[in-house]
């Protein structure tokens, strides 16, 4: 099934004018900015896990590498933030490729584990890296704000940040839709649905998997960079398992390989998560329950429901 740009453009238009209603609500704006940034990470995760069938748990680690790289490059080396974000995302992409090259030839559980271990080892590496300015177990603070053509974007000003993150989000959606609709995407769907057949007609999954993994890593790195300059603080808490499970809930409830679903889930759960904060330790417990229940009882997630409704609707239109 080819994805159309139509719905994405409609959504973009709605999002473009949304601040007219809520620009005074700083909290809500913040949540929307975070949703946009997370959605970049998650759309990439969905692409590699749901479409390319790469069983990766490393997407958050790569996001973190992007965030830390850009934070350190701008704060310590003194690169302008926009440059540091770009370089940081290239570093994140490079790490992604280094991990992908040996592991993507292996069975799924190995990929899952290598990437999970990358995530865990990164926590130690950041602590070890204290001497080179990673902030160790605490955090990097005072990251310079984003500036562009002489205009600087302090985090307090939600509106410009909203448009920056929205632009990034839609840029990434269009790239991912293009990938899914390209020959890569089609060969992935073929591999996913009929692996033997696809292999017999010569679909080279290894090469395309590496390319797509790298693309997802690049965007995760970019999102990480913008996150660092928006928050102006990065800490190893991004790598906490409660955060991991939150993003996993978004991915699973959104529906693996059911494209628009993951974006809807990102927005729902970013908001829900804020309201779950008073629950403290119950929040990760609840998120754990959600992952299990979602995967057992709604394996196609929100994306499955969206697809179901749109096909019904199309059929209905055709009949009438």
């Amino acid at each position, binding site marked *: 099934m080819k994805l159309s740009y139509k719905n994405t453009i409609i959504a973009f238009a709605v999002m473009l004018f949304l601040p007219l209603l809520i620009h005074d609500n700083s909290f809500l704006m913040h949540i929307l900015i975070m949703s946009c940034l997370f959605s970049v990470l998650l759309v990439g995760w969905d692409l590699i896990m749901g479409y390319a069938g790469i069983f990766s748990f490393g997407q958050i680690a790569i996001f973190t590498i992007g965030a830390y790289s850009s934070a350190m490059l701008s704060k310590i080396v003194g690169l302008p933030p926009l440059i540091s974000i770009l370089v940081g995302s290239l570093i994140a992409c490079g790490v992604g490729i280094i991990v992908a090259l040996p592991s993507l030839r292996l069975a799924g559980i190995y990929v899952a584990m*290598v990437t999970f271990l990358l995530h865990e080892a990164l926590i130690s590496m950041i602590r070890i890296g204290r001497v080179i300015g990673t902030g160790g177990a605490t955090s990097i603070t005072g990251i310079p704000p984003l500036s562009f053509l002489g205009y600087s974007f302090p985090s307090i000003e939600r509106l410009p940040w909203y448009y920056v993150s929205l632009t990034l989000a839609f840029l990434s959606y269009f790239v991912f839709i293009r990938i899914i609709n390209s020959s890569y995407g089609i060969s992935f769907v073929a591999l996913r649905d009929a692996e033997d057949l696809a292999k017999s007609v010569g679909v080279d999954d290894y090469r395309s998997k590496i390319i797509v993994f790298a693309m997802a890593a690049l965007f995760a790195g970019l999102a990480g960079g913008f996150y660092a300059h928006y928050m102006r603080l990065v800490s190893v808490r991004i790598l906490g398992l409660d955060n991991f499970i939150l993003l996993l809930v978004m991915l699973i409830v959104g529906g693996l390989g059911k494209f628009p679903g993951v974006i809807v889930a990102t927005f729902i759960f970013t908001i829900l998560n804020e309201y779950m904060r008073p629950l403290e330790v*119950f929040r990760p417990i609840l998120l754990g329950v959600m992952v299990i229940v979602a995967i057992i009882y709604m394996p196609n997630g929100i994306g499955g429901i969206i697809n179901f409704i749109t096909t019904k609707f199309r059929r209905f239109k055709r009949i009438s």
Partner: protein
Amino acid sequence: MFNQLISIFANGITISSTYAIVAIGLSLVYGVSKTFNYAYGSFATVGAYITWLLFSMFDWMNYPVAIMVMIPFMFLFGIAIEWLIPRPLRKNENWEITTVVATLGLGVLLANLVLFLFGPYTKALPELGGGTVSIGHVQLDWNRIVILILAILIVVGLKLFLKKTYIGMSMRAVAQDIEGARVVGMKINHIFALTFGISTVLAGLCGMLLGTIYFLTPSGGWEIFIKAFVIVALGGAGSIDGALYAAFILGITESFVQFTLGPIWVMPFWFIFLMAVLIFKPRGLLGIR
């Protein structure tokens, strides 16, 4: 210096023996049902905290009783989890992926449940045996000697169970050819549940033994799980002997890394080691499949 090396080596061996138990449990479940359980480390945490609870509730508590209580508890716990999560998922097309995601959720859930019930402060289990023994100039803790003995008993007992008993044979049969087992009329689901139960017991025992050396923390299980996985990857998924050798190779190396570079390098060491194994020996040392 030499004595120091010997004692690092000896510590490495005791740690390795606990890693062997947990890795064998992980490998056993993977070998039999191809299920990969990401909550496995949290099972070890649960086992350790159950032991702590027993000791804090009853003054007269001792390890033989604690073990006798924990084994049936962990076994039933494992069977219940198997029934709740991997079994309904196995009907799905992508059950391998979905099981991993669901058990990861379970792992986070359990770790936070432990955090909620027992609080964030570290806890310690009493030692299995007090004092030290001197062999030459090297001093060894009784605690570690008892751990090693228990670990050997557990591994030998498990191997005998798999080799000699009919039910153990059935488990091996399912691991070797599940289609053949089905044709013979084996109750595959029972064997999956049993294997899961046994592996949960092994995780619990490992958590208990490690708890006599290190402090207990609610999230400590993840490290155990990751190490168990790397051991299984090195030893070859599904191979028990492979896991045994790999546990000792990695455990002893780890204790040298810990001594020379510091404990913070332990996790990066396991990561780099796993990458190296996967590059040079993609199917593990004694890999089956």
